[in-house]
């Protein structure tokens, strides 16, 4: 949650910076296309004894899914790199996300978990910090394992790092599963906490929490 400095001294709650909001929604679109098309690609040669429901996939058939997957990957990567560059350069990460010291993260964990849905405005609680930092790691793992599957000859050392071509497919799948779990939790909370969804669109902080500050 990057804060607009103008409002800082006045004790008002702060909303998301425009850059964070734009990259968030581009990322949301790219991730949905990647997951939906990835499910279709998975269905062509399942790793496990199940297939994804075709209606939930993107691309219509294997070639369509591949076209979407290898198009949306550029959006995901370019947008992700821009977000990371902004996050580090602006101080957003240092200030809001990366303070996952063992003390701040775990001593308050029980308290913060029970008050998670209260959702303090202008600050991430430890659970949020862990999740939002973790999902960046999961996305990075998805990109890197995806490259290992895409180019097992040109980037054969990377593929070997994952244990081989087939193993890289499993890593890619498990990382996708972790991402889906995050998305499910994230979307559930975004809809259940009043005002936060609007806040990610407009940049205005949620009212109820804002008045608390």
């Amino acid at each position, binding site marked *: 949650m990057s804060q607009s400095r103008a409002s800082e001294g006045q004790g008002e709650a702060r909303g998301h910076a425009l850059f964070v909001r734009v990259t968030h929604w581009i990322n949301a679109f790219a991730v949905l*296309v990647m997951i*939906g098309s990835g499910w279709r690609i998975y269905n*062509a*040669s399942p790793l496990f004894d199940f297939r994804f429901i075709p*209606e939930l996939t993107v691309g*219509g058939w294997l070639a*369509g899914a591949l076209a979407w997957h290898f*198009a949306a990957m550029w959006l995901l990567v370019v947008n992700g790199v821009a977000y990371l560059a902004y996050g580090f350069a602006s101080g957003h990460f240092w200030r809001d996300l990366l303070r996952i010291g063992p003390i701040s993260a775990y001593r308050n964990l029980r308290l913060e978990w029970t008050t998670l849905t209260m959702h303090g405005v202008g600050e991430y609680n430890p659970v949020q910090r862990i999740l939002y930092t973790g999902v960046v790691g999961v996305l990075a793992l998805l990109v890197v394992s995806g490259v290992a599957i895409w180019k097992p*000859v040109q980037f054969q050392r990377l593929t070997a790092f994952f244990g081989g071509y087939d193993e890289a497919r499993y890593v890619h799948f498990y990382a996708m599963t972790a991402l889906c779990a995050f998305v499910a939790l994230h979307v559930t909370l975004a809809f259940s906490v009043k005002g936060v969804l609007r806040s990610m669109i407009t940049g205005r902080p949620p009212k109820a929490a804002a008045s608390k500050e």
Partner: protein
Amino acid sequence: MRRKERPSKPRLKEFQPQIERIERRLFLKQGLSLGALTLLSACNLKDDDAVDRLLWSISRWNDRVQAALFDPQRLAPTYTEAEITRPFPFNAYYEEPLAPVIDGSSYRLSLSGRIEDKQSWSLQDLRALPQASQITRQVCVEGWSAIGKWGGVPFRQFLERIGADLSARYVGFLCADKYSTSIDMATALHPQTLLALDFPGAPGETKYGYPVKVSVPTKLGFKNPKFVAEIFVTNDYPGGYWENLGYNWFSGS
């Protein structure tokens, strides 16, 4: 490698640019699932024709990226006899019983395009050329992979022998099973690209491409044509059976 989900519409057999263009439209229209439509409408991309064209142009962009990533000297990993996948999976755009059985004694490999010596080759003539063999992994666009052993003539040596224009852009393949595909010249000249005469499977088994297959360990399986009847060298984009339907042309591994 080539049996996969297919759109329910008439199949293309020859390279006809106009039909290709229509095919492209159809392919990606079918590609717009409910989920994609929902997403797209949220993003104000109104007509799927624009999306089709976008996806196709990104696929062409991905061809260029992959060509740039391709290192002509980097070898695909090789494996031991013990690691060979047995039985090696059969894959084509048709079911296994429909695989052609070709009489090796009367077989001729035809040559056309930018080649000096267009004389056709018998299996015996090809056998007389220097032979090599390798155990490599074939990765399918569907996601599975299998390790197999192929032997035959290093393709670079064959291209040099027939006086192919090595500065041309493409090498295309027409197959006895009506399949076709094409590869870039850089890949054709890669040290592991093989005009394969020996295949996985038991001796006498013809379904893996007898008498001639082109093994390209640096590309996905569908870029490895079986039952090759004609090889041509050209500067005009030749496309291919799956490529014309929407699969990425370069498809490098």
